[in-house]
């Protein structure tokens, strides 16, 4: 069985598992966990384009999640706006703030930019706390439910899973074609990216806006899932968690960060000693991955399978086929 067949089969099996989850999951708690994974993945899938593909060190996305959540809670909860419309607005606002978050990337190099994103999430939290009339300050706000049939746990699960699948499909389309290559070129060799004509700054901004939209949408459904949000929900450690899911899963891939999200969300819930360690565990895991397999655990499987298959690296000489080259050059559009 070749690797293409394996991949397709795993995807089909995975799809079936996801579609039927409410029926084989143990209890309400596990269903809730699955929904949480979907909600996180909506944000992380978008963030993946920024961090995993374009290589921007954004550790402030919890601020965008917060903006999405509060927008939804205020519109759909306090102001009685239709929840679906509220989700759209959350996404839009998230996109706008994502743009603002990405702007400094033009002027500020790596670490500086990371700190700027950290400052962003800190400022968002402070504003949320201060605007008591709007956001309930330290007390927080209830997260409204969606109308039938999405008001039940099973219905909600299918709602967020559908959104998550849609976002995954979008990012997969971007990743495997020209834009994906362009983003990776910005990450791995910006000079080369310029040389082939990639509009580096515009591309970064596009990635940030996209990730802002998904973060806003994620925030909206997050508020609904949690049923109550306070500023304490949106701590820096959550930003780190998103970031770690991507790095551990492996940059430049979609499935890697997805598996990372699943594992890192589920693990502390299912293995209780880990739950006590909480963020210490994420830090430890990140350190181990960075030191041992910096390409991420996704790559680790590739490396292992490469080792298992016999290594036959044929070193053939470079022999140009000049006729073929001439013909290829003649094609001018």
């Amino acid at each position, binding site marked *: 069985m070749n690797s293409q067949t394996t991949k397709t089969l795993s995807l089909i099996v995975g799809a079936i598992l996801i579609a039927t989850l409410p029926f084989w999951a143990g209890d309400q708690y596990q269903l809730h966990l699955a929904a949480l994974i979907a909600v996180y993945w909506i944000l992380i899938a978008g963030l993946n384009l920024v961090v995993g593909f374009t290589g921007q060190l954004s550790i402030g996305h919890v601020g965008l999640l917060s903006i999405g959540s509060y927008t939804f809670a205020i519109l759909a909860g306090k102001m009685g706006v239709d929840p679906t419309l509220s989700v759209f607005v959350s996404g839009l606002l998230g996109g706008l703030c994502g743009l603002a978050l990405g702007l400094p990337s033009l002027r500020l190099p790596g670490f500086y930019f990371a700190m700027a994103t950290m400052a962003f999430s800190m400022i968002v939290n402070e504003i949320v706390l201060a605007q008591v009339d709007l956001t309930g300050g330290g007390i927080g706000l209830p997260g409204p439910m969606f109308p039938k049939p999405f008001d039940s746990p099973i219905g909600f699960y299918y709602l967020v899973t559908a959104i998550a699948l849609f976002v995954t499909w979008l990012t997969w389309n971007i990743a495997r074609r020209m834009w994906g290559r*362009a983003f990776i070129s910005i990450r791995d060799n910006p000079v080369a990216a310029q040389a082939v004509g990639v509009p580096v700054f515009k591309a970064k901004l596009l990635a940030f806006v996209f990730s802002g939209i998904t973060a806003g949408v994620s925030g909206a459904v997050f508020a609904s899932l949690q049923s109550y949000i306070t500023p304490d929900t949106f701590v820096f450690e959550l930003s780190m968690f998103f970031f770690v899911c991507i790095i551990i899963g492996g940059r430049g891939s979609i499935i890697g960060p997805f598996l990372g999200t699943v594992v890192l969300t589920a693990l502390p819930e299912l293995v209780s000693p880990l739950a006590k360690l909480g963020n210490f565990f994420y830090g430890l895991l990140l350190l181990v991955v960075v030191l041992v397999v910096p390409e991420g655990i996704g790559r680790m499987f590739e490396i292992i399978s490469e080792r298992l298959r016999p290594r036959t690296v044929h070193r053939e000489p470079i022999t140009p086929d000049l006729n073929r080259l001439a*013909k290829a050059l003649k094609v001018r559009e």
Partner: protein
Amino acid sequence: MSAMQSELQAINVSKQFGGLSALDQVSLSLRPGEVHGLIGPNGSGKTTLLNLLSGYYQPTSGAIKLGDEDLSLASVQRRAAVGVARTFQKPRLLPMLSVLENATLGAWSHSESGFVASAVSLPSVAREDKKFLEQTTELLHGIGLGHVIHRRANLLDHAEQRFLEIARGLAMRPSFILLDEPAGGLTTQEIEHLSQVIHTLRSSGIGVLLVEHHTDFVFRISDRVTTLNVGNMIKHGASDEVRTDPEVIRVYLGA
């Protein structure tokens, strides 16, 4: 299209960094369908001139032109769009992508797929990508990398990396390609292959600027040669003329 017949020119360019003058009133023209060598000792300003032509530096005075268009202040990306490709002294590749993906990146400026169109995978996007991949595959086979098309770029040896970078430049469908010491680290056999490839580029009407240290190689395959020394041009003209010029011999070729 007149752009095809236009020359890429540096006209009396000077470049200063702070108090240091790297280039002083140097002119060079690159014609379509010619191989133009650029030689000179270390520090003579070859790389500076290359960077000026490709847009990484702006001239302190003088101009860079492509036909009638003044490119002096144009961005690197603009130069790519008008058909100026280049390679680098140390190949700049994307280590985690395959040879095919690396080379196909070169087709970027010909892509008409917007971000949103790509996200929703419009049929035109799929068609365009397929076309680029096929065209790049042909280029890679032509240049001699057909046997490593799906290999990850960080597993390539030095020569393969150099040829890959050239292939990426060709995927840009350039009118001009500026090669920065492409023979560095190549065996004699590989340099021979490189010459053949450059000849083919020339016959296709591409203007090739060849910055090199391997002077035999340069004089053998160039139509015209420009020699620099400490930021000044000391001789330019037909390859044979320059090779036998006494000052060039004194400064660069040794006794």
